[in-house]
């Protein structure tokens, strides 16, 4: 397994040009708002709105489908089981020994719609700015520097660790090792994981030394050039407005469809 490097090239849409701080400040709260929706019509509206934004952002199709697919793999089992497990009142159908609940169906639908809507928003965020720009934007928005730096270092070194894992696997294979369901394989994989952890720890020590040698004193500093434009403010205002309207509508109006 190797990780492909994060090649940011942008989508070419106007969303690329927006200030990452405003995108972060708009899309993350919007995603949170979607997470709190309780009724499927509101979730449906959120999904449609997020698809529109993804279309406007011109997300690369294969890249987008890969992420949606990954999210669906996680959510699908729950969405499929909910209609059979929901025991609240409401309309029910019997299919042989199985009992299908309308409430469960709607709960599953709501789950999938909300999940996809949130994935769409996050995809727009990460496809339209490099990760390091988003992390600097987070720091500019007063997200704790320690958290930002940890994420930055994770992003930086995950490729290195993946390369080490790849070398370990090659070293195992050239000595005739093949993964089998037996004690030898489990022990070997355990040793490999342990080796990776030890090497990671040693590398972390060396990186810490290198940071101290360049004057690091515990404070995380970055040089980020952000400039707010009217388009940034307009974008954030529209997103916040829509998210707020959706929450209010969900709370007030959509309960009749629940």
């Amino acid at each position, binding site marked *: 397994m190797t990780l492909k490097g994060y090649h940011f090239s942008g989508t070419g849409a106007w969303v690329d040009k927006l200030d990452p701080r405003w995108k972060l400040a708009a899309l993350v709260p919007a995603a949170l708002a979607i997470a709190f929706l309780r009724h499927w019509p509101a979730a449906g509206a959120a999904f449609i709105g997020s698809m529109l934004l993804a279309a406007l952002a011109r997300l690369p199709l294969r890249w987008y489908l890969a992420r949606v697919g990954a999210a669906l793999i996680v959510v699908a089992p729950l969405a499929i089981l909910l209609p059979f497990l929901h025991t609240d009142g409401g309309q029910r159908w019997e299919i042989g020994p199985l009992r299908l609940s309308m409430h469960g169906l709607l709960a599953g639908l709501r789950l999938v719609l909300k999940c996809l809507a949130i994935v769409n928003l996050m995809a727009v965020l990460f496809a339209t700015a490099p990760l*390091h720009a988003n992390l600097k934007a987070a720091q500019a928005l007063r997200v704790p520097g320690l958290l930002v730096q940890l994420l930055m270092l994770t992003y*930086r*070194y995950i490729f290195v660790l993946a390369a080490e894992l790849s070398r370990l696997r090659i070293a195992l294979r050239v000595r005739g090792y093949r993964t089998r369901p037996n004690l030898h394989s489990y022990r070997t994989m355990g040793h490999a994981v342990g080796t990776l952890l030890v090497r990671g720890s040693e590398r972390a020590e060396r990186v810490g030394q290198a940071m101290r040698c*360049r*004057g690091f004193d515990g404070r995380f500093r970055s*040089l980020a050039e952000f400039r707010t434009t009217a388009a940034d403010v307009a974008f954030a205002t529209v997103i916040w407005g829509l998210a707020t309207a959706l929450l209010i509508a969900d709370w007030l109006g959509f309960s009749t469809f629940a």
Partner: protein
Amino acid sequence: MSEPVIRVESLSYSYPSGQRALDQVSFNVAAGECVGLVGPNGAGKTTLFLCLAGVLRVQPGVARVATLDPAEAQQRRQLPAQLGIIFQNSDDQLFNATVFDDVAFGPLNLGLSAEEVRQRVAEPLERVGLTGFEDRVPFHLSGGEKRRVALAGVLAMRPDILLLDEPSMHLDPRGRREFIRLINGLEVTKMIASHDLELILETCSRAIVIDHGRIIADGPCRTLFADAELMDAHGLEVPYSLRSGGVGQ
């Protein structure tokens, strides 16, 4: 005679495990000198550099680097502006998401203004021939490029003293030649730890041989390296250019 910029007197260091890595090491380095530090694996070369940089704690008074004592907390904090160190593995030293961020890391820690930081990034990148690499991801660079970015990151601090630990490791011949050219163009005090004795010959006039944490010999490179008995006794070899019939002869 002017005060040496690096003065080490009876420096000893043992790791927490009890392993004695340095034993009564003493030497001086004058301003502008380029000194090679050679010895077999485990001799204590990297440990010595880490002690000089203040990363490993030593006894107060045994070392002075640019008039600063690495053992004193207050003075140790001032060391990064005076002393730069290039580590063996460039991946340990390139820990930011982009080349620009990595080279700017040191100047930002010095508290410089945004404009000054940008200048301190542009100048060393130009010096190492990597202008235009600012937005590149360090992981995707070649070994030689990573080494040059690491050097740029240290030069951005404008240190008067440079410690280079195995600078030719992981470099192909072209990268190695380029790096030697860069090192020779730096007008700062340098110490270079390396197994690559040909590199030491090309960059340094003086060498210190270290083995089992002790200084074995200290003198002109060509004299020391031509001593086959000395080289053999301490896990080294006479460089090809110094052997009879070699290029240097």
